[in-house]
């Protein structure tokens, strides 16, 4: 029923579109490389990383737009000898959306491999994704995108925003495996602050009713994010509760994350993030992680980052339960990060 209503809304609204305008071409390329020390050192040397290589392209003409985002992944890699042309780094389609955005209303409809509502929200609030994915994606409980459709609407001068999506539920890298679809919704309030409106407060709540895999293992989520841009600083907190993770319906973990970082043209911007995850179903299952560092603006679009990360896992969530040697890790490293846009 919801889909029929959405379709009807799209068709009716389209009839009113007259101004097609010129095609605008928005390109963004983000590349980051890291060198890090890991202690205690596990396995073979992993000092050098291509931590991020993303090419995003959006073409727009009037209300119509098409968005494509490709990200680098290592084929084969550490998991397999079976890769592409050896174990080459290849580009993976992360997002492929047909979008329609009428110019007379704050609304958007998208279909294809659509960006996840939660991940998009969390990404908007956390800038250092080459060092760590945002809350939810970092824990492996959320995926960047999924096959399906999404609609968003803004009301009250776009301060109140709502979005819904229907997707396959199998995420970015798997085809549909069951007859069920994931239904997700997000509700967001954006409050401009300050005299010039540059600062803002953003509160979002999110829910997902989902299933995964051949046997419809539950895959539900409820979460919220509160973030604020104040005087060049970004402050945020997010919490996400899962019922079922990656086909394991018994798993019911929850994570809380808080972060603070500079978000301006300061030469030196510090950043800090703290994460805590726990599964109440599992004894001694607390996982703690702290990530901090400084971001140096080298030139426009290019940054140097020095970072330190420390994580501790209680025995219930260690890679092998009880293996204390695997319960602690720290990373210290440096990253060169560039993000350039054409027609931003």
């Amino acid at each position, binding site marked *: 029923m*919801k889909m029929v209503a959405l379709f009807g809304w799209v068709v009716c609204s389209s009839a009113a579109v007259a101004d097609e305008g010129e095609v605008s071409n928005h390109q963004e390329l983000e590349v980051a490389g890291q060198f890090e020390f890991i202690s*205690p*050192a*596990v*396995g*073979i040397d*992993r000092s050098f990383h291509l931590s991020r290589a993303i090419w995003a392209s959006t073409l727009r003409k009037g209300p119509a737009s098409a968005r494509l985002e490709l990200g680098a992944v290592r084929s*084969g*890699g*550490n*998991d*397999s*000898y*079976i890769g592409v042309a050896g*174990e080459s780094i290849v580009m993976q389609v992360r997002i492929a959306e047909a979008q329609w955005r009428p110019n007379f209303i704050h609304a958007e409809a998208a279909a294809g491999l659509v960006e996840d509502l939660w991940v998009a929200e969390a990404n908007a609030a956390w800038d250092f994704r080459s060092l760590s994915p945002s809350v939810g994606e970092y824990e492996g409980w959320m995926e960047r995108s999924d096959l399906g459709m999404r609609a968003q609407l803004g009301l009250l001068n776009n301060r109140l925003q*709502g979005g*819904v999506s229907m997707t396959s539920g199998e995420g970015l890298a798997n*085809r*549909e*495996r069951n007859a069920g679809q994931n239904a997700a*919704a997000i*509700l967001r309030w954006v409050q401009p602050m300050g005299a010039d409106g540059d600062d803002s407060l953003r509160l979002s*709540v999110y*829910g*997902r*009713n989902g299933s995964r*895999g*051949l*046997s*419809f*293992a*539950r895959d*539900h989520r*409820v979460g919220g994010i509160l973030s604020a841009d104040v005087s060049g600083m970004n402050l945020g907190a997010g919490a996400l509760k899962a*019922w*079922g*993770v990656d*086909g*394991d*319906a*018994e*798993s*019911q*973990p929850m994570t809380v994350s808080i972060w603070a970082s500079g978000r301006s043209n300061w030469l030196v911007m510090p950043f800090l993030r703290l994460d805590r995850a726990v*599964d109440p*179903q*599992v004894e001694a*299952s607390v996982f703690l992680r702290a990530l901090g560092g400084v971001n140096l603006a080298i030139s426009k679009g290019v940054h140097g980052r020095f970072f330190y990360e420390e994580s501790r896992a209680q*025995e*219930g*969530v*260690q*890679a*092998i*339960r*009880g*293996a*204390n*040697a*695997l319960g602690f890790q720290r990373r210290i490293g440096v990253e060169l990060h560039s993000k350039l846009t054409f027609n931003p």
Partner: protein
Amino acid sequence: MQFWVLVLIGVGVACSPPAQPRKAWLHDEIVDDNRVWLTRDHARVAEKFQEMNEERFNYMRGTLSIWLNDLNRPSGSWFQTQFLNSLDATEVLIVGDPHPENLATFRTPGGSIVFGFNDLDASQIGPWILDLHRSVQAMASLSESSLGCEESCITEMGEALAEGYVTTLQTGQWVDPGNWSVLSQDLVAMAQEEGDTKSEYSRFVRGDGMLRFGTTLQDDGDGVLELTPEEAAQVDRLFKSYKQRSGHPVILLDAVRVFGKGVSSLPALRYRWHVENQDTQERLLLNVREVLDAPLLPNGLPALQSGVFQDNAERVLEASRAVWEPSDSDPFFHTAYDGAQVFKALTISGYQQDFDTGWLTDRWDSGEIAEADRREFFFEIGAAIAYAHLRGWSLSGRDSGEVIVEDIAAGGGLTALQRELSESAQAQLQLLNEDHELFGALLREQGALLGAEGLVNGVGEVQ
């Protein structure tokens, strides 16, 4: 309004208890584990599932990857270790799948019969304790079904296996042949007899020197067929590669395709070669089988296989040479490439006998082995794993035996290991029984491919 209705529905559904969550988890894990075969030859996957359904031990053999993934599943896992207190202990060469049907006799070039793990497809760098827990799972299943074990005997098995492991680590020596258990002595005697009479050879080779084959496969998928033109072309490429890599002066007399062997690797491509050593004019049979990646270690552990070994050929070759004593226990063992596909070739000989569950059942049922013999057998299984670990190496460069001995001491010594393995054996046996029943129910409900018919198509249109 609609949003809140959706949220309320979502919360309501989320808070309701899931129906048979382990069954759903197993369903996806087992299908995923066989994805590579599903897209290539789904009929073989259905046969594999049928084999796994028929016997609990076969189910165990066919679910190594699932067993590994279960170790750190957040909820419901039986697993807990007191060991692995140093990183070095998580990075030693492990057998991977040390169940008793993978422990076999070999006839060395010197003519003596020795024991060694004959299937090292799952070998990799990993935590030493995994080999023991996997072995305990297999031995608990085998002991109950084939060796008349009940609860106290399962506990005894875990203790004896731990004792055999630690004793061998400390002495650095394999069990003296004079002290072998009755079962091992009998297996060696059988290997000697069947090897000497060349019973395997005459079973597979016709009088004209060509290999026997049938025209169709049996109902259960077993059988031997003549090569198709594509298979013949692949065999040509593989034989050239094998000859070049091994350096053996052999010529290929004949080859056939073999179906229905093994459990975990049942859908893998498998050929039987009849070759002649041009130096000695000796004719022999080789079992040539595709090798895939070793299963991934529990999530969160680095998968080291691709960083340590160049490819799967090097992995199984190096592991065999390291673990076998002598390293050329099977002198014709080697590997071959067909493009990116890797195969291994092992000699087929009556001299190679493993601790087959059927053979063990017969021996127990006929009263030929007593409880004391059974315990010695458990001890020897632990000793065999220890010997493999001793001959292997650690990624840190330290002696693997030293690393493990230190780790055992730090974790509480032999007593702690005995307790851990005994508890593991009981817990795993119960879980294995439950999982095997769930698997049977899945097959009945979902069909021969567990409902994965929609996944058999490989690369194609985006969907």
